[in-house]
């Protein structure tokens, strides 16, 4: 018998496949993504070589993950930051609760890693007010929905719907104009940054040699969230560690080009709390930026995943999102083909990190194994190979759609499936 997950999932997929708004929004997004990506990569064509070097580096780190976690944590502490290792989601939540407490205002930068924790829900349960500050995430938060793409969380929400949502927040009718709607979000969030007690972000990279957190963005919300509040908490998946600052720069170039950007407006590199020695060379922590800098290294299944050489490759994902735009299926399903992580690459991430095999099962049978994502992945992650490997585990666990199971059984009994 197939699990209930298969039926629930099928229903949600069949609901979205007929949604004309989603189709139009995605068609536009895919077309402009392809143009931008092709032009970014052809102008900076050395990035092709750089991505190969980065693959090797990430390979090495993932094979020596424990060592690198230890080294990076030590460096953060040396930089007068606080480093924590969170084996599980519960560990991470306990650590964050201890730092944030209750009755605080929290501003957040976009972080899929924080979705693993259902962080917003918990922060609110503890009595805090949370503002997502990335425009897409802000929309998603106000809709009470979840991110539908790794880079563009509100990719499936057309402007008409955003206008309706923001008009409600503004208490007046706002036009269906992206510029006007962006201006509203800017005004709405401005004082939240300034008055926030805590800023929480993810990280694109953290480097072992300098303990530097890299944050790549275009909106400027991360700059604000990491410099205005007195406390900055970074939640970083341990697979994001790179050995050196130079590797970090390489990652910035590779991920930006593959995500379709010739230049990211902002790359923040943060290596500790703000400080000054301007009065008699006495070092004081907490100048204009945060006084406290906390880095939580989240494992949550990553170490285990790294032990399996096939799955380990999935941990190299840079989150550029190219595979999703280039997938034949994702533009039709969007993030409904997903749980916390979505699309083909979301299958190993769901199975091993956020969700488990039962949740990953229907996702694994949504991939056509066509291999198009491999061609466009800067890390050349062979998602079909990974998905095939996961299907073998799912078979052992009994998480297979009935029809497919019957077909396989027919081959075993009759010699042919039909």
């Amino acid at each position: 018998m197939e699990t209930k997950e298969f039926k629930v999932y099928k229903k949600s997929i069949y609901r979205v496949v007929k949604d004309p708004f989603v189709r139009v929004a995605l068609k536009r997004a895919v077309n402009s993504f392809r143009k931008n990506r092709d032009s970014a990569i052809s102008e900076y064509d050395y990035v092709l070589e750089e991505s190969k070097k980065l693959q090797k580096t990430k390979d090495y780190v993932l094979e020596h993950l424990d060592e690198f976690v230890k080294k990076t944590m030590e460096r953060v502490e040396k930089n007068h930051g606080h480093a924590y290792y969170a084996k599980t989601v519960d560990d991470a939540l306990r650590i964050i609760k201890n730092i944030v407490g209750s009755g605080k205002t929290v501003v957040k930068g976009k972080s899929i890693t924080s979705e693993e924790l259902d962080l917003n829900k918990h922060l609110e349960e503890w009595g805090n007010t949370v503002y997502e500050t990335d425009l897409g995430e802000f929309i998603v938060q106000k809709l009470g929905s979840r991110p539908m793409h790794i880079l563009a969380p509100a990719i499936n929400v057309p402007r008409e719907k955003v206008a309706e949502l923001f008009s409600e927040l503004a208490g007046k009718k706002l036009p269906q104009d992206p510029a006007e709607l962006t201006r509203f979000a800017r005004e709405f969030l401005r004082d939240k940054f300034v008055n926030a007690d805590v800023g929480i972000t993810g990280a694109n990279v953290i480097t072992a040699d300098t303990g530097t957190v890299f944050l790549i963005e275009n909106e400027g919300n991360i700059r604000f969230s990491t410099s205005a509040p007195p406390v900055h908490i970074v939640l970083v998946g341990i697979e994001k560690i790179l050995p050196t600052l130079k590797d970090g720069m390489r990652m910035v170039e590779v991920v930006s080009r593959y995500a379709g950007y010739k230049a990211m407006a902002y790359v923040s590199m943060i290596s500790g709390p703000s400080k000054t020695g301007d009065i008699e060379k006495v070092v004081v922590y907490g100048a204009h930026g945060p006084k406290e800098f906390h880095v939580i290294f989240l494992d949550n299944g990553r170490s285990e995943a790294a032990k399996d050489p096939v799955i380990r490759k999935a941990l190299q994902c840079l989150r550029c999102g190219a595979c999703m735009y280039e997938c034949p299926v994702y533009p039709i399903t969007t993030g409904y083909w997903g749980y916390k992580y979505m699309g083909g690459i979301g299958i190993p991430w769901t199975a091993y990190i956020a969700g488990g095999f039962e949740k990953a099962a229907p996702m694994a049978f949504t991939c056509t194994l066509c291999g198009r994502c491999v061609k466009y992945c800067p890390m050349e992650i062979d998602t079909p190979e990974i998905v095939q490997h996961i299907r073998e585990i799912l078979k052992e666990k009994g998480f297979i759609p009935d029809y497919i199971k019957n077909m396989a059984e027919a081959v075993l009994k009759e010699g042919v499936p039909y």
Partner: protein
Amino acid sequence: MAKAVFYGCTTRSNPKLKQNLDKFLDLVGDEFVREGEDICCGAPLLLAGYKDEARKQAEKVVERFKSKGIDTLITPCPHCFTIIGKEYEHVLGVEMKGIKVEHITQFLAKSIEEGKIRLKNKVDIKVSYHDPCYIGRQGRGIYEEPRKVLSSIDGVELKETELTKDATTCCGGGGLLRAYLPKLAVEVAKEKIDSQIKPLGVGAVVSSCPFCFLNLSEGAEKSDIEVMDILDVVIKAME
């Protein structure tokens, strides 16, 4: 040593595709052992995660051919082609014992070149070609052969889509998606027809995979695009 045509379960169980293949074999006139009535290549097992069972199936298949003295297989199915020709050895660790596999488009291209197939009729159609993932990107990079076949036929005008050869977008029929979420699979095909094929102003899209044929056909139901198998076109030129 003998040559065999391996139908593949999907071609065999579709009346139109099977009839076409039989007709083509009659027209060619070569002696082929016809195989695949009662034996599957094992691809559905492998794709469903039954790796050990797929290995046993692969051994059975190799044994069957060996016992009949078959050293060359020709198949119209990209999935049979790739699992037998590539994954038996590399994924399942099954020795091929000298058996070679050809996709029908390779056989066609070679036979045309050697003059064994005579494409005597003019076939006036404007078509696009859909590259099946499992002979191309996931298979052995077979891109030129089917194009060579189509361009050898008088009257056939081939218009390429932007995303072609190793950049081809899957029709939605692969990876057992059609078995679990058939409506989604068809929607993927429909999207391909609407956004890539229709704007070319062609009358038909030709493929060389039974899954692509079935899935694209359903996806094209409400359009005026005809979905053809490459043998459809070849037979028209030969008869």
